[in-house]
């Protein structure tokens, strides 16, 4: 028997647990502020090209997607899945996953599918052009 006041508002929902021990912020902060974090950091990547944002939607999907018994990733926005449980309870609708991948991408994303097969000379040229310090 718990006191109602000590029960966090999310405790009565069956929220699938994320991978690892902790979230990127304490869970009680994430519950309340994840949308602010997402909107803020989204603009950093989109407008300024910052690729090291802390609150990346791609990362939420990496850690919070559930796997079926057939070992396939279940879309994170599916009914009862991580990004839907709470939203369904409070009648929030998000459209993020009409564009954003709702399952982790198995292809080597930012490292790209082609660089592995690039001939050394071309690879060197690409590196030279990019002039990474």
């Amino acid at each position, binding site marked *: 028997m718990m006191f109602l006041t000590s029960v966090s508002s999310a405790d009565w929902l069956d929220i699938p647990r994320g991978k690892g021990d902790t979230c990127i912020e304490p869970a009680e902060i994430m519950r309340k502020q994840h949308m602010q974090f997402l909107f803020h950091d989204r603009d950093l990547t989109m407008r300024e090209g910052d690729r090291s944002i802390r609150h990346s939607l791609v990362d939420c999907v990496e850690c919070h997607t559930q796997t079926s018994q057939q070992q396939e990733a279940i879309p994170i926005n599916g009914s009862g899945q991580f990004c839907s449980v709470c939203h369904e309870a409070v009648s929030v609708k998000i459209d993020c996953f009409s564009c954003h991948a709702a399952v982790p991408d198995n292809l080597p994303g930012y490292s790209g599918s082609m660089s592995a097969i690039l001939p050394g000379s071309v690879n060197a*040229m690409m590196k030279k052009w990019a002039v990474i310090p």
Partner: protein
Amino acid sequence: MSGHSENPETVDSKRRKLMVSAVVASLAGAGLNLVELAMAKTSSEATSKLVRWGLLIDTQKCGNGCDACVSACNTEHNLEDLGRPETDAQWIRKIDLVDEQTSHVDSLPMLCQHCENPPCVDVCPTGASFRRDDGIVLVDKHTCIGCRYCMIACPYKARSFVHESLTNQRSWSPRGKGVVESCTFCTHRVDVGRTPACVEACHVEGGGAMTFGDMMNPDSEISLSLKNEPSRQIREDLKLNTGVRYRNV
């Protein structure tokens, strides 16, 4: 890409950026050539006005039947062929330029020209069409309302509207119904020091016709080519100062 936690490297690169600007400031006093200090950013840095990304395409090396750049782009961004060429998204396409006098045909890839004065940005009512500090012209799909003014304004027909719900998007290239989209110069690659997918493919499978790089750095391969050999902008009469240049047209 995963695990974007605050790590010491992030802090360091921010510090380094500060140090670089300090160096710029001190050298400015000495009257030295500063532009060489402009360099590609690390993944955690913001885009810089000291960089302008550009692409030079040598149409003589661009094979007539070759579409390596087009298919690489389609794969990278999962631009699926829905069998409706009128409306299917197209970020880069091969076109034939015909000289009306001589009937000479040049085959070349057409894509967003990443203009310095982009008409698409001028007409956008929400600010979704914008130009990054490093010259890359983008649609912020989070603010795009799908009005398509930009598509009409673009002299190069470089933009597409997504008419249908999509599936199987790549994590690095979110795409969806109801917004306009176009070539991003593969910001997801360029931001981490890699070249766009089309350029890579052109060198691996195609004729090696594409040179990508920083047009503000006088020592970059693209700057040297632009300086030493003639090149053109398509529709240079519009004075858009394009980031995509062509040779031998």
